[in-house]
């Protein structure tokens, strides 16, 4: 077999095998170089897989040449490809430009170990996105979660430790719920392969265990995805993690959980449980709407920049799920596109925050006042990414909000409520992003904002690449929208 045929496996293997090498290397700079190389390679593999999915359709890879359902199957369609692009792109970009910021926050002796944990997290996330096996998802989920706890706990303040502990408890409960659900499905069907489950659940005569399994899996993954009101771990974890880590996990960790949620609820359960679409929508739509409103409202009154953006993430997870809960092609397309666009916007914003943090004494809104004059490039990128978060036309955020609004309008009375909520929350986003931008540009400089200079050019370049990606995908949304439409069709084949 040629190397190209092995790409799905290499997607996991490259970061996973580089990690122990880093532990042996020990030198901080060497470790950074190797971790970045592995991440960039993972990104290249993801791009190659995306191109292949676009040209030939679904890629199936039999791990160890054991045919499914006996062996573990890696399966990549449009949705997986999009998630892979987000994960590996976020990792490559944040590592490429984040070296100076990370070196300032983490003990140099531990940097090599930190990068190793980062790569394991990347391998776990990529593993979730490529595998077609429900138990394999659990294992990769725990690999990525455990590694994520480690890189969050590397934050400089002691609050990072308590935030990690909270995340660890809630994350493990979520994963265990998922495991119970998978166990119940296995008990009734005798299979762990997604495609095989889909075919066999229909033969089960007693549907009750499957229904219970659907409940456990949905709630467990909602915990991992920080769906309101299960989001309480997220603001502290985002706020106290090292800034570059926040940029990485904000771009991908919740998205991956949402991906598994969509895969399970639409592909496995949808065709086999009576009234599942209605149950799914009536469970998640209210939570999504509440999450959007409350996340945006809290963000409006938050005084700490990272915490403000973290609460905004709670609202954005709501947008993604709101799209999915419409259970229509337009709705799912909008949700999946927003998954991609929100990763772009939040990744760029948190990178800009990392750049600000390198030169300023703190990240409260009072601390960043006036930094727009001394750090013009960083501030401009932050404003651009903020515009994408709000949904200004010409940016990526606009595309997904537009798709979401048009999907909502198809939905009748519920859709009107959704439209009102989306508009209100967009106004709230204007307010909270404006508070940041107003302070940056028009605030009276205090403390070391007066003497601040631009951070290292690598970081500024990274922030700008991310910010310009928002504009690029705002003007040319073909790639994410095309993949999302393919994904929506794949997910909706069970709906009439």
């Amino acid at each position, binding site marked *: 077999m040629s190397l190209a045929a092995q790409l799905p496996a290499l997607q996991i293997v490259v970061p996973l095998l580089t990690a122990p090498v880093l532990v042996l290397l020990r030198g901080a700079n060497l470790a950074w170089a190797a971790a970045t190389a592995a991440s960039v390679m993972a990104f290249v593999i993801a791009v190659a897989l995306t191109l292949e999915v676009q040209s030939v359709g679904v890629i199936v890879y039999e791990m160890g040449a054991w045919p499914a359902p006996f062996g573990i199957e890696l399966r990549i369609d449009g949705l997986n490809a999009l998630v892979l692009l987000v994960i590996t792109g976020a990792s490559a970009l944040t590592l490429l430009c984040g070296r100076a910021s990370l070196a300032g926050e983490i003990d140099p002796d531990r940097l090599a170990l930190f990068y190793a944990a980062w790569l394991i997290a990347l391998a776990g996330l990529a593993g979730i996105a490529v595998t077609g096996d429900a138990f394999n998802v659990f294992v990769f989920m725990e690999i990525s979660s*455990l590694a994520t706890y480690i890189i969050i706990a590397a934050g400089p303040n002691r609050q990072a*430790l308590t935030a990690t502990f909270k995340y*660890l408890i809630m994350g493990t*409960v979520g994963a265990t719920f998922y*495991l119970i659900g998978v*166990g119940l499905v296995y008990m009734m069907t005798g299979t762990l392969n997604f495609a095989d489950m889909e075919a066999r659940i229909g033969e089960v005569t007693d549907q009750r265990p499957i229904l219970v399994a659907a409940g456990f899996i949905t709630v467990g993954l909602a915990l991992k995805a920080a769906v309101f009101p299960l989001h309480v771990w997220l603001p502290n974890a985002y706020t106290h993690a090292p800034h570059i880590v926040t940029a990485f996990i904000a771009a991908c960790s919740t998205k991956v959980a949402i991906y598994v949620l969509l895969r399970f609820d639409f592909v496995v359960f949808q065709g086999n449980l009576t009234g599942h679409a209605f149950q799914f929508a009536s469970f998640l739509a209210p939570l999504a709407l509440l999450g959007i409103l409350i996340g945006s409202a809290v963000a409006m009154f938050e005084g700490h920049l990272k915490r403000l953006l973290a609460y905004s993430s709670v609202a954005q997870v709501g947008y993604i799920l709101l799209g999915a809960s419409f259970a229509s092609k337009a709705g799912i397309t909008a949700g999946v596109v927003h998954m991609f666009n929100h990763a772009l916007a939040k990744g760029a914003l948190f990178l800009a925050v990392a750049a600000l943090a390198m030169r300023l004494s703190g990240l409260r809104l009072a601390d960043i006042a006036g930094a727009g004059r001394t750090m013009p490039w960083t501030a401009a990128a932050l404003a651009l990414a903020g515009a994408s978060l709000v949904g200004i036309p010409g940016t990526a955020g606009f595309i997904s909000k537009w798709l979401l609004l048009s999907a909502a309008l198809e939905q009748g009375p519920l859709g009107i409520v959704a439209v009102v909520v989306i508009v209100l929350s967009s106004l709230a986003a204007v307010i909270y992003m404006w508070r940041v931008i107003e302070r940056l540009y028009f605030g009276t400089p205090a403390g070391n904002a007066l003497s601040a200079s631009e951070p290292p050019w690598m970081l500024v370049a990274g922030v700008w690449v991310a910010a310009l990606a928002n504009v690029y995908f705002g003007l040319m949304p073909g790639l994410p929208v095309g993949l999302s439409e393919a994904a929506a069709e794949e997910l909706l084949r069970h709906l009439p």
Partner: protein
Amino acid sequence: MELLGLFNYWVFAVLLMVGFYAVIAKPNMIKKLLGLGIFQAAVFLLYITMDKVEGGTAPIIQPGVDAIYSNPLPQVLILTAIVVGISTTALGLAVVVRIYEAYGTIEEDETQRQDLDA
């Protein structure tokens, strides 16, 4: 008879809730981790119970012996899940040690109070 036949599943449900209660209600972080351990152990029991086939024996194929075998797959799965559980507990304990060094306490409400005061 129905009750006894489902005995393992009742134990699963009770253990799950006992562990979950400890995770939610106890402010002490070590007790939370203990609760998490019980919570996970309950799920191990669920998997191990479901693989039992009545009259089944250990799934080792021997020539000339025609027996009913129990399903080995859940046991393999749960071996993996146990490893995951151990790693989680180890990492959790390591974090608690660091929290104790930083705060001088492992009571969650106390650490929150210290953060608010600071």
